[in-house]
């Protein structure tokens, strides 16, 4: 080939170089300012939570009766006492550093969010894909069961579950996850129903791939878009449920903490010590905001026809 022809071929290749749908979606996602900001803020909160012991010199359970319910040094309003250097968010009613406690609360809340979502993801995807793939009577039966569970006042069941497990914190992940998988199953089933009409599934079946193989190798990868969107919207939901339970005194026990516990404590002392309510509430609201922005961004990125 002459150099000119080579150059022409390269140009052509570049012009027609396939961009996968995922690359397209990623580009669209990164053009969305709200989603990018959300990812950045969430990243910072996650890093702070992970490295909480190294960020502050105070221990999350270090009680100091010299600085009980003290405002941070920079607090512009009147306060009974100032907490002193290092206590950026002030201290709580037994003199523990609030900043480090907010970060430890972030650990718990985020961990519950991710683990419970993972549980719901596994159950929901397998259940929904199976029902959608089999169709017919199996589908009708399985989705009928989902409908019944849907009509349960599920928060009551979470509360009864918490009582049943005697407030075992690790089982709370499972309990919440086991309750929030229903919508996931519905979404996956709907996607599967439409995906299984496609030619490539027929080809796989003709080639003798087992039903399990078709579900895990062909159907699940192709229904992943809406699922990813729903996952990012489930995490904040779960964080809310956890904080809700903690607020009612059914969640994590002292000296460990979560945002729900901190907010609950803060609500009790808000007249004398508003910082105890404001900072945990701010962190939690910001995190939930981020997840929602990322979810919306993902939806727009993965489903461009909605634009």
């Amino acid at each position: 080939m002459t150099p000119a022809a080579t150059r022409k071929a390269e140009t052509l290749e570049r012009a027609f170089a396939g961009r996968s749908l995922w690359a397209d979606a990623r580009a669209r996602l990164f053009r969305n300012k709200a989603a990018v900001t959300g990812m950045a803020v969430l990243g910072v909160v996650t890093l702070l939570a992970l490295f909480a012991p190294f960020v502050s010199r105070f221990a999350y359970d270090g009680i100091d009766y010299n600085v009980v319910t003290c405002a941070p040094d920079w607090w512009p309003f009147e306060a009974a006492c100032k907490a002193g250097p290092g206590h950026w968010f002030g201290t709580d009613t037994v003199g523990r550093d609030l900043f480090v406690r907010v970060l430890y609360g972030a650990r718990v809340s985020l961990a519950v969010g991710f683990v419970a979502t993972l549980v719901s993801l596994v159950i929901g995807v397998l259940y929904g894909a199976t029902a959608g793939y089999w169709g017919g009577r199996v589908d009708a039966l399985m989705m009928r069961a989902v409908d019944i569970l849907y009509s349960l006042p599920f928060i009551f069941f979470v509360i009864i579950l918490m009582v049943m497990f005697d407030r075992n914190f690790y089982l709370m992940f499972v309990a919440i996850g086991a309750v929030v998988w229903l919508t996931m199953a519905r979404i996956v089933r709907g996607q599967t129903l439409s995906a299984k009409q496609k030619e490539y599934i027929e080809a796989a079946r003709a080639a003798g791939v087992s039903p399990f193989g078709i579900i895990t190798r062909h159907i699940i990868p192709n229904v992943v878009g809406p699922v990813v969107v729903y996952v990012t919207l489930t995490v904040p939901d779960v964080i809310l449920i956890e904080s809700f339970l903690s607020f009612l005194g059914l969640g994590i026990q002292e000296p460990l903490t979560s945002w729900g516990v901190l907010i609950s404590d803060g609500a009790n002392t808000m007249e004398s010590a508003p910082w105890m309510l404001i900072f945990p509430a701010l962190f939690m609201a910001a995190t939930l905001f981020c997840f929602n922005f990322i979810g919306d961004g993902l939806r727009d990125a993965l489903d461009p026809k909605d634009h």
Partner: protein
Amino acid sequence: MIGYALKRFFGALPTLFIIVTVAFFMMRAAPGGPFDSARKLPPEIERNVKAAYNLDKPLLVQYGIYLERLAQGDLGPSFKNKDFTVAQLIGIGLPVSMRLGLLAMALAISLGVSLGVWAALRQNQWQDYSVMTVAMFGITVPTFVTAPLLTLLFGVYGVHIFGLEFNLPVGGWNGGAWRNMVLPVVVLSLPQIAIIARLTRGSMIEVLRSNYIRTAKAKGLSANAVVLRHALRAALLPLVSYLGPAVAGILTGSLIVEQIFGVPGIGRYFIQAALNRDYTLVMGVVICYAALIVLLNFIADMIYGLLDPRVRLS
């Protein structure tokens, strides 16, 4: 239509039966019992107390007795609130919770729909962005944060708005005086206002792009007529199917709101009862709420069928 209603009614019975069964056995699987704090009782008296409530019998027998009484409409006595039956307690608490919930629902629907329509008509303008930002706040800031904040603003500090002084009571029920209801109702409806506004905006935008709206505009109908008579009706359809989840959301919120504002509704009973192992009261409240949700899902489906002729109820 009547056939469909009957079918749905009988379809709901197994659902309720499963709810009762699951709740019954889950509650019994929880460690501890209703008379644990009274451990000091001499063993023979404790035995008598348990025998009086049939708690000494095997679990399956107790389940059978419970179902038999339930079928006769008897929810049993409360274990912890002496001298009260569960039905009496629900009779006292439910009207309070219902009043709160219905007011919150009405506020959420009227305000949420108006905001959503407004945002849709001004899509991608500042009105749209501000409504959606506020809605995002409503969704992400949980009830138990808004409740103390609003209490602080309107109850403790007594904020002045437009020359009016807001000095609302921060708790208590006072027989349902409106001043006592303002804060609980507002707090309860905030997340629902936000969700409904988002839903309405989304479906309204979609409807406004459809062909029949273009036709209506082309016929020369006024903007008001197009929006109110043609677009709104179709845009409200997704909202109807949200009715069931909305009620569930309000019920969940009422657990918190009743706790914070000291409202004597049934949400407050439930948590106390679950912690005290007041088996019959827990069951009573669960059955009550489940029936409510089943009923509202049913009503939502019926309204859907009435509004959308394409949906055939069968």
